[in-house]
């Protein structure tokens, strides 16, 4: 039932995983380095969020095999995530307002 396309030849089928694993570690290293580089605050935040999103994408795409699923499943999983962004933006914008109205 669980037939999937394999993108790598037999014998080296774990290569994708090793490569993914390697990149995840590299990005983690970069993340930790970013904190200690003393960059401007906004740059640090942007950089860290970008790196985190990249890691998440790697995990979902390769470890969770999302890349090898049908496109409609990918959309089904990814589309609702936009709501998280909306929730975050709404709450964060209002939290800023609360900050300014603090007594």
């Amino acid at each position: 039932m669980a037939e999937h396309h394999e993108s790598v030849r037999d014998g080296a089928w774990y290569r994708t995983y090793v490569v993914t694993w390697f990149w995840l570690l590299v990005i983690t290293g970069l993340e930790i380095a970013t904190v200690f580089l003393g960059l401007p605050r906004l740059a640090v935040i942007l950089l860290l969020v970008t790196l985190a999103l990249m890691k998440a994408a790697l995990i979902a795409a390769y470890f969770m095999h999302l890349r090898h699923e049908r496109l409609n499943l990918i959309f089904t999983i990814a589309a609702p995530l936009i709501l998280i962004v909306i929730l975050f933006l709404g709450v964060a914008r209002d939290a800023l307002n609360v900050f300014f109205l603090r007594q």
Partner: protein
Amino acid sequence: MPTNDTTSGTRRSAALLGIALALLIVAAVVTTLAARSRWWLPPLASAQGRSIDQLFIATFGIISVAFVLVHGLLALFVWLYRDRGQRASYWHENRALELTYTIIPAIVMTGLTLSAAGLWSRIHSAPPPQALVVEVRGEQFGWKARYPGPDGKFGRIDPRHYSARENPWALDPADPAAQDDLVLDISTTGELHLVVDRPVEVRIRAKDVLHSFFIPAFRVKQDAVPGMVTSIWFTPTQTGPYEIACAELCGPLHYIMRGKVVVQTQEEYDAWLAQTRS
């Protein structure tokens, strides 16, 4: 078979429902007209309330038209198309019709959005510089108010100095600006005094839980949120006494959390202030 209602049963149901829906329209119109004299918005006493009432009346007109239209059509259809042995038409798609009743509501809603957005931003604009500034505080279960002293400054607050009798506002005695602040209990002994035709900015605090500062006659409502100072400004236009209510559930005695506000002329207000301070 239960589906085969007798023709007279269908006819009776159709007639009843048609008449009921028609009566519903009549009843809604009649009671609303009757309600205008008894059960309506309290008499208006603020400047911004005019625009709010106008927007409300406009919206009310729009929804009344829609109410009558839909119920009228419904009454008509249940009567006209009751089962009389005819065959229903196999008609289930008409792009032009559907687009019509997509676009018309869309236009109406756009209009409402624009007018309401304009009014909303006016209500929440910065208060004019000559505005009177007062603070009110909601607590279980009453309202207190604070006027700044002659220095025009509100003193610092420190909850550690709270004392129900001596220092109900928890003013910090170390702050010189706090020495001359005027604190009133506007639920029991005192009243919130405002000046007619002079804008007032009310800063709203909460001592314990959420409350909501509600003056029906001014069309003013703003929650008192613990930990922050919300504010609202408006211009009273009629002298006289009005009442403050709490509109946010704040505990068992929420229903008695009432306050008093008095709108006076500038002279009366000055006299009151001088007398109270002394």
